[in-house]
């Protein structure tokens, strides 16, 4: 170890792995992972969210899975909870859509309206 810089670099890489265990996060991304969600392709969606969030160091975002929400026809369903804001429900999400949701919604705060449940009904 030759400098603080070198240590900081290791730290930044390492933090991505440990960050998940930090309980103080205000934004929650909930992926439906019941049988219906999984068969509709929720697994890669969940992984995409986890990877994108880590890549962009979004330390205030927690990606969790949940059971069946009851609208199996719209799976994979992803819900985003932000404090003091309405819950946003995305439907028919795939990994590409997931990346866009992270970039536009989680990073910049702009809901990707065309993927939300409201756009379909």
């Amino acid at each position, binding site marked *: *170890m030759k400098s603080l810089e070198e240590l900081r670099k290791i*730290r930044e890489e*390492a933090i991505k792995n440990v960050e*998940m265990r930090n309980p103080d996060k205000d934004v929650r991304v909930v992926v439906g992972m*019941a049988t219906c969600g999984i068969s509709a392709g929720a697994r890669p969606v969940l992984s995409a969210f986890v990877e994108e969030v880590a890549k962009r160091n979004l330390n205030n975002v927690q990606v969790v899975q949940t059971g069946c929400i009851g609208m199996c026809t719209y799976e994979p369903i992803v819900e985003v909870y932000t404090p003091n804001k309405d819950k946003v429900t995305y439907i028919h999400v795939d990994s590409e859509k997931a990346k866009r949701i992270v970039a536009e919604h989680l990073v910049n705060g702009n809901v990707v309206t065309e993927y939300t449940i409201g756009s379909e009904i």
Partner: protein
Amino acid sequence: MKIFRSHVLICGGTGCTSNKSMEVKGRFEQKLKEVKLDKEVQIVVTGCFGLCEEGPIVIVYPEGSFYSRMNVDKVDEIVEEHLLKGRIVEKYLFKEKAKVEHAEEHKSLMEVQFYSKQKRVALRNCGLINPEDINEYIARDGYMALGKVLTEMTPEGVIKLMKESNLRGRGGAGFPVGLKWSFAAPNKADQKYIICNADEGDPGAFMDRSVLEGDPHAVLEAMAIAGYAIGATKGFIYVRAEYPIAVRRLHIAIDQARELGLLGKNIFNSGFDFDIETRLGAGAFVCGEETALMQSIQGNRGMAKIKPPFPANQGLWKKPTVINNVETLANIPQIILKGPEWFKSFGSEKSPGTKIFALGGKIINTGLVEVPMGITLREVIYDIGGGCPDGKKFKAVQTGGPSGGCLTANHLDTPIDYENLAAVGSMMGSGGMIVMDEDNCMVDIARFFLDFIVDESCGKCTPCRVGTKRMYNILERITQGKGTLEDLDELESLANSIKNSSLCGLGQTAPNPVLATLRYFRDEYIAHVVDKKCPAKHCKALITYEIDKDKCAGCTLCARKCPVSCISGTVKNPHEIDQEKCIKCGNCYSVCRFGAVQKN
């Protein structure tokens, strides 16, 4: 680096490991492979979570779900339900046993009352990181303090900062760390040493073991910082061989730190060299005393020496040496990074910071807690510990192990710090906290601790070698109902002589458990010597078992279980115990289903 979507943390501390947590880990690995989740879910073995009573403990992130009393059979369901389908398995979650509101709703770790009242500084990484992976420590700001010290601070600056923080030695005596360092720093020598005292010997104490098992790098980092401050280039960790997990993790940690150049030559390109070796102790209590410890490292028999010379002037191999306890060291990197003001923002004025206690004895939540100094005994025992189990009445709490004292229910509102505990006749000690209820005989407790001391006295000085044995004999006589009132005076006089004339801390504090119990529970001693009764019904020689003829149903169970066949009687007729033959084993008492056997 591979990012996992979920982490399964499994406790690999000594408590949970002995409860087969590694079998649980094995099943998790196998099952995750079966359902093809092994690339998505990471299994992490951590140090102690603290709530050993509820072990083996497993925590699943990101939810922070706290599964307690895990076993191999529960694993499949958690993998299939929680990890595969996202449904937390409520029935296996930790259930609050202490009385709290909304006990049913607790789910995640930090919502559990056992943790919510704690303030974790020295234990901040225990149960959160994998102690065998230096990267996880670095992710939690590990080695940043060492980097800061070596690149931005002078040795004098480090000592000044430690003095300002007023961190006091957590091994028991409470000596200010900054002051200790400042004694060793100006001494000129070709070699100086830093020693980490990990010879934790108090019965029932496991604070240091847990820190070493859960966060070994924090101790290594702090030793290097101490080395820089006093000009030492070599460190020894004196750890007991009975802590195999701690020793193994220390060796892994030392190797990893060397590999990254965080130990070794020219650390952070500052010209500062520092390396650490471990020395295993054979488990002699006296080797926790610093002069005896150094003798042991040098390869001699562990026996105390006269001070002065103090270690700071002439320590290991007569070179200036600083000896700090594990928990003390674990605080240091945080103090360097966050500053003395932060450290002083919790705790009491004279004793800033936190203290780890190993809660044991008659308490619901047996385990490890770290609380701010100044918190009351009541908060620790009732709010965190959950009080005595089975609705029994609290009688006393023992702090400081064989060197400490007992406090009664009247002292429950005493704030915990060095001064306040000493003022009421006990001591902070290294952190063992043993709770006793109405079934504990205080005379027998005093006898137990003296028995320990008699075994552990190194024998060098007469007061300790002979005096403690004499005290033990008297206590044994009292518990056998053969004591007299004069014995109590004799005990007190012996205690004071031993206290005043012993060579080292072991002897000087050995009479404390006796003095404290004599002070607060004299009535129990008197009951033993005058009435020949043991109020707690514990001392065998002073109790009798009798069968209540009205309650006895004549089921013959007690007669069949009696190892000396001293119970007579026929089926469906009341039985009787032959007092002459009875060995008071208590078998009849515990097997009787009708409450007919009485203990008097």
